[in-house]
């Protein structure tokens, strides 16, 4: 059996890189996003991170019982639970903060 030449090595390396890029894209599409703003899901599902983002670009936070209310231009845009977990609730809140407060 012949050892693979430089060209086939290159080919294998290119196809392996492409596979990793594709795998990364697929994993990204399944587990996270950072659409249109700085926050990403689920990595940024922390109370302090969401609060910081909710205080930018005209957005402001107001305490209200078990939730933190986020307002912009006098309107409530979302409500964040005091206990933030990396779940579907955080995912939806991040979408709003990225769109309305720039993440």
């Amino acid at each position: 059996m012949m050892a693979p030449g430089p060209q086939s090595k290159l080919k294998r390396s290119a196809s392996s890189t492409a596979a990793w890029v594709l795998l990364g894209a697929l994993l990204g599409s399944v587990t996270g996003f950072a659409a249109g703003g700085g926050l990403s899901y689920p990595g940024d599902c922390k109370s302090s991170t969401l609060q910081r983002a909710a205080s930018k670009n005209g957005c402001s936070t107001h305490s209200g019982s078990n939730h933190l209310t986020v307002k912009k231009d006098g309107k409530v845009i979302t409500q964040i639970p005091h206990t933030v977990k990396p779940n579907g609730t955080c995912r939806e809140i991040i979408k709003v903060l990225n769109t309305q407060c720039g993440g």
Partner: protein
Amino acid sequence: MEDSVRLWTLRTAPERTLLERQGVLRTDGRRIPLYRRNAYAWMGEQLARRVGPPPPGCRYPLWAWVQYGGEDRPQPDLRARGHCPPGTRAVRIEAVLPRQSILLSDFQKWHAVLNRTYLAQSESDARAFEESLQRVGVTDAWPYPEPFASRVIQSWERVFELSEGDEAHWGPVRERQLQAVFWELHAEQVRRLTPFVAR
């Protein structure tokens, strides 16, 4: 399922006085902020439909924790912030209510109702909903046009699915935060009072 449920409701000192004087506590909803009224009314309708109608003059339910920090830490932690405005003199009321008088729901999922968003079962369900909006050029924000508005409202019923849903999307079942709503609390249902000053 047990016949009774232990729960904890956090009330201000005047509400405690009212409970002790009248022997029963209800809410008329006057102090509910306008932006939460629709969500609270929705929960009231669910309570009426699933448990029973409210007493006369009562439209909004009372709220309590059943699992504040999951199965291992059911009581609300009084050192935590946000229970009441800072400095408020309040009380943690521990009570036992008949199972058939309360409606349990998932506190984290409840935010879909509060925020008027689609309550997805899983990441793939969330993406499928977003893609269906994108296909017809509809913005992903309330108010949604039909048929999306109905899909969103229908999805809220999943707040009552306590041990279901994708754990990758909603977290382990034993760590989920559970809340209860009910129409009234009677003094004889109270087991313990713990006064505190809110942080």
